């Protein structure tokens, strides 16, 4: 759309001011920023274990490596900082780097600072960490069990916080209702995974005890306080800056803050600026993800489907440490736990649990995906169980249009909306009737086709006090009230009369600079290009507060609103200046087409620049009641965002948008692959400032939700091993997987925001996964009990539901098996070989270092360290990565010359493996039969990046060992007869029994 000077810019899809630079390769992202000469590079040594004690860290070899300036351990860090603030009252510390225990794969254990990144990584591989692995727990329910491994002994268990809430009279409502309907819901871990990873540059000035840190952090800037406290400096000794461009965040880049602390310390120790850019494996294994959650939800339901009470029991998995602002994911929705429905009674039990997984943090949707998945699956279950139409159940419970602003049972003030009308418009304009006809036709043809619905209230502009709902009213009273959502904006006019806007909104692609130019240009009657906007932050120079940053969809409602107010104030000032110069009343001054003039008299006007420049060039001529400051800074916070009440009522967010989605999904009859046939999403996000950007937010959130619904999962083994460390394992949707949704809008402006706008960025991350799940459930079982749907919905999960369990193979051949979920990445297998050597000879070989050296694949330097213990260096290619490992081999349960158990453990920078095998030797007519049965586990980096190839590769390595043993026992030389048979047999062992 072309810019048209006579129409306001707000509400139009003007082209973005950001785009020319971004399209030309002139963006200024974190890794593009210029660095000071002498800046050093940093690489992390990270835990390969889900849970282990650190027995020792040997840095000698790394410290002596080329280019290395410093090697820093957790103890070095701990000596200089304070534990990071934890958001609940609990006896637990939270360090940015492991000290004597690692609690998740990828946890930083040491830092290597060197002259370049390549050398730093070389040296990181040389840091020898001796771990004593501990039992791990990755499931939040299992973590609550009596005998579960405990991550933080000071806590006495893995439950770090529990609170119960009661609103209205839920017990009476449940007693009175004819139906009590409940479901259990498991919501997995996923993350919105920006394409640009974390990056930090830090320096330290000892003379002022001051840190200067640039990071692609996104806020909230309450975290600035957490970092400053941890670094033991006042806020003004922590200068935090963000780059002008950021390659996506979706909440995730909030989690960069522990690295700000670590880089600050590294710069201090290395006495030079230090830079770190996270790699993709680090990002996937150790940045932050959303929480996974186990929920039991029950509803008290009247005969007509009206819900009179809800009972929530939520178990939230925050990973290995409760990092700020967690457990915010669990509490962000607290005010709107009744969704879009008018439900007056509610009980909530919230438990926050720690497990051996990456700590969690902000992620688009933040608590909404987990909560709405349970609520909207429940709505589906209610309709099923009562034999009611699904839409009727939704409609009967919607908050009525005349009830706004509507105070929910748990304290949110829903600002505006007309849910029933928005829903009805979506049904009509989205073609639900036609979709139902498609479904009926498909079903008549025997195909599996389902329709799903989801209704969501999308909160935006978080109340900074909502997280204190996790504290008891007594604890809150002691800590002092927290509330509000300070947004800042500065509008300034320079001596040439051009306008600059500065905000602390830290965009990651949302086009903030364009929208602010629209808002402010409209205010001053200027062309768009006359306004220049900066949205990156320098905490030493810019106006900011704890709520600053880009999260909770706060830009359009809060930040753009603050800019509107600042521009209005400056405009009022200019009106007075102009009124004096034009000899008219300030109320008659107009701002149009770059001129300030008299209403109704086009001849009496001055150029905007001339009026605006007056204060700079001749302040003495200003009217008496106008000060000369051509700069307005506004701190805006809405009065509606109050601290939690003594009854735990909390208006957790200022704005509440509305979304109604429906979709049709067909499951392929042969492959069981689910496919979206049609998707309709209706949004009420209040006043729309830039239609194309709003639709961009909807499409982007929708695509990420499609990923969460069908593809994405942070996969962990039971031992805490991380198994989705590449983008070939953690699958993001491509253009092939994302259909185009039909987007509809219904605008009811928010009465609480300066521009009437509400947030819109996160809604589909909340509505789409459950809408898809409901459609899949409908396709699988149109009537009767709801099937349990756990994301991601893959063909592999659906196939057994459709075709039944896979029949057991008729082939009796024993096979190597990988059980990824049972107990880490466990491989089991067995095999046998017949060789031309006596049992005694084979027995001797097993105890002989020279033989072991010859038969252990890739081994060099086998040393006998005890009668039955050996040490070796092994070079192995496992999966896609080749690395050096230190191996310990032990023989036990010796029954010479009949049987022995071989146990081995290999540890290297790329990962670790362990296993044991029982070898038995039996005389047969053809020679000695070597039979073996083994169990092996592989963890660390190789398990994270090579999962797909690992099983096959490990099979080959284990097969090679026994093949070499057989070859060694049977003597070399080609031949026929028994030897050829042996070869065939061994070949079959090496290929896992299939020859």
């Amino acid at each position: 759309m072309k810019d048209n000077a006579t129409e306001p810019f707000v509400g139009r899809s003007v082209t973005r001011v950001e785009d020319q630079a971004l399209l030309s390769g002139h963006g200024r992202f974190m890794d593009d920023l210029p660095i000071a000469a002498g800046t050093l590079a940093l690489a992390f040594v990270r835990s390969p274990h889900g849970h282990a004690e650190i027995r020792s860290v040997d840095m000698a070899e790394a410290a002596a490596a080329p280019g290395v300036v410093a090697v820093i351990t957790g103890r070095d860090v701990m000596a200089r900082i304070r534990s990071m603030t934890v958001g609940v009252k609990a006896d637990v510390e939270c360090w940015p780097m492991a000290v004597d225990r690692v609690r998740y794969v990828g946890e930083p254990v040491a830092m290597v600072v060197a002259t370049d990144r390549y050398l730093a990584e070389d040296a990181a591989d040389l840091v020898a960490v001796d771990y004593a692995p501990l039992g791990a727990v990755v499931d939040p329910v299992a973590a609550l069990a009596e005998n579960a491994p405990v991550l933080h002994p000071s806590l006495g268990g893995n439950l770090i916080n529990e609170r119960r809430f009661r609103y209205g009279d839920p017990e009476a409502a449940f007693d009175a209702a004819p139906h009590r309907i409940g479901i259990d819901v498991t919501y997995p871990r996923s993350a919105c995974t920006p394409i640009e990873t974390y990056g930090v540059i830090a320096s330290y000035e000892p003379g002022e005890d001051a840190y200067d840190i640039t990071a692609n952090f996104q806020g909230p800037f309450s975290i600035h306080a957490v970092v400053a406290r941890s670094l033991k400096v006042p806020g003004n000794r922590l200068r935090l800056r963000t780059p002008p461009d950021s390659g996506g965040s979706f909440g995730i880049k909030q989690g960069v803050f522990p690295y700000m602390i670590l880089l600050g310390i590294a710069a201090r120790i290395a006495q030079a600026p230090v830079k770190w850019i996270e790699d993709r494996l680090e990002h996937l294994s150790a940045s932050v993800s959303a929480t996974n959650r186990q929920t039991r939800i029950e509803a008290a339901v009247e005969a007509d489907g009206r819900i009179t009470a809800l009972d929530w029991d939520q178990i939230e998995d925050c990973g290995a440490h409760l990092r700020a602002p967690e457990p915010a994911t669990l509490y962000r929705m607290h005010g709107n736990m009744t969704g879009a429905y008018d439900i007056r009674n509610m009980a909530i039990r919230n438990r926050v649990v720690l497990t051996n997984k990456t700590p969690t943090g902000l992620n688009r949707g933040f608590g909404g995906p987990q909560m709405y998945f349970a609520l909207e699956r429940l709505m589906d279950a209610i309709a099923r169980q009562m034999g009611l139409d699904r839409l009727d159940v939704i409609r009967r419970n919607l908050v009525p249009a005349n009830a706004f602003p509507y105070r929910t049972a748990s304290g949110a003030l829903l600002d505006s909306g007309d849910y029933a009308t928005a829903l009805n418009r979506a049904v009509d304009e989205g073609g639900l009737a036609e979709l139902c006809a498609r479904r009926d036709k498909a079903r008549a043809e025997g195909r599996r086709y389902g329709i799903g619905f989801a209704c969501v209230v999308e909160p935006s502009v978080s109340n900074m006090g909502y997280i204190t709902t996790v504290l008891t009213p007594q604890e809150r009273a002691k800590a002092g009230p927290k509330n509000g959502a300070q947004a800042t904006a500065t509008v300034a006019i320079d001596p040439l009369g051009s306008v600059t806007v500065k905000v602390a909104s830290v965009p990651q692609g949302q086009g903030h600079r364009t929208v602010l130019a629209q808002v402010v240009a409209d205010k001053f009657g200027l062309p768009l290009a006359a306004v220049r906007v900066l949205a990156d932050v320098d905490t030493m120079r810019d106006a900011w507060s704890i709520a600053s940053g880009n999260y909770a969809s706060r830009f359009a409602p809060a930040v753009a609103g603050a800019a509107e107010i600042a521009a209005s104030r400056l405009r009022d000032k200019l009106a007075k200046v102009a009124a004096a110069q034009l000899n008219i009343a300030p109320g008659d001054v107009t701002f149009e087409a770059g001129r300030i003039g008299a209403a109704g008299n086009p001849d009496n006007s001055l150029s905007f620049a001339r009026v605006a420049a007056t204060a700079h060039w001749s302040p003495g001529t200003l009217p008496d009641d106008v000060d000369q400051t051509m700069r307005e800074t506004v701190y805006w916070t809405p009065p509606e965002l109050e601290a939690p009440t003594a009854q735990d009522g909390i208006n957790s967010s200022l704005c509440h948008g509305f979304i109604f989605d429906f979709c049709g999904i067909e499951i392929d009859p042969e492959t069981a692959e689910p496919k979206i046939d049609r998707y309709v999403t209706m949004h009420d996000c209040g006043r729309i400032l830039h239609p194309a950007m709003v639709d961009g937010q909807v499409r982007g959130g929708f695509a990420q939700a499609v990923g969460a619904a069908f593809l994405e999962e942070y996969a962990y083994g039971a031992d805490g091993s991380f198994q989705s460390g590449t983008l070939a394992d953690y699958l993001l949707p491509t253009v092939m997987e994302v259909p185009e949704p039909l987007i509809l809008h219904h605008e009811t402006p928010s009465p609480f925001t300066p521009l009437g706008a509400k947030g819109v960025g996160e809604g589909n991350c909340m509505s789409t996964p459950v809408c898809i799940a409901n459609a899949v459930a409908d396709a699988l079982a149109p009537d009767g009990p709801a099937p349990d749907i756990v994301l991601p919905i893959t063909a592999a999960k659906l196939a057994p539901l459709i075709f039944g369990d896979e029949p057991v193979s008729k082939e009796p051949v024993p096979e190597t098996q990988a059980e990824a979920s049972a107990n880490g990445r466990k491989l089991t297998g067995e095999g046998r070989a017949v060789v031309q050597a006596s049992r005694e000879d084979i027995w001797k070989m097993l105890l002989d270092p020279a033989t072991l050296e010859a038969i252990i694949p890739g081994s060099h330097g086998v040393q006998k360290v005890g009668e039955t213990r050996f040490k070796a260096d092994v070079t192995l290619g496992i999966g896609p990565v080749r690395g050096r490992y230190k191996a310990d081999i032990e023989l036990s349960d010796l029954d010479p010359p009949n049987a022995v158990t071989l146990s081995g453990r290999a540890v290297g920078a790329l990962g670790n493996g362990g296993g044991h095998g029982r070898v038995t030797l039996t005389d047969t007519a053809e020679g000695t039969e070597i039979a073996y049965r083994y169990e092996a586990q592989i963890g660390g980096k190789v398990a994270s990046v090579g999962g797909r190839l690992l099983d096959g590769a490990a099979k080959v390595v284990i097969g090679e060992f026994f093949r070499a043993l057989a070859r060694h026992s049977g003597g070399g030389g080609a031949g026929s007869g028994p030897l050829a048979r042996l070869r065939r047999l061994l070949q079959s062992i090496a290929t896992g029994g299939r020859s």
Partner: protein
Amino acid sequence: MPRLTQDETHEVRFTLNGRAVSARVSPRLLLTDVLRHEIGATGTHVGCEHGVCGACTVQVDGEPVRACLMLAAQAEGSEIRTVEGLAKREQLAPLQEAFRENFALQCGFCTAGILMTLDALFSREPDAEEDTIREALSGHLCRCTGYVPIVQAALAVRNRIKGGPIDA
């Protein structure tokens, strides 16, 4: 190609966006690193360093290549084109213009790679069908846009190449 030794740097010469460049590189230095940190052409971005996300895609002798999977030394004597080479002086190329008109980027981090892939596609196949365009785009991950406007932009510029209106 000269024999390279691990501990020494070697001169590598290639053409970058029509300009002859050279750098001294160690044999293991990635092409992305020499472009971004030796030469200072930071328009090419690194998203995964294992060839999946496509953000680092550049053209080597006209073909789209993952610069994170190529060593700088391998670029010797080649003609490399990056996102910085698309615009003519300060004027966006039609492909870039179509991205802007269609809001086909948000954060812009993956965009350089996508532009280089589409530019290579259209120079080979100016009237590529939508399926072909989608196939080419399927090698790129974008987390912001949901891909719809990227496909629209690609179709728009294809139509413009064919002589039609850009907003078709």
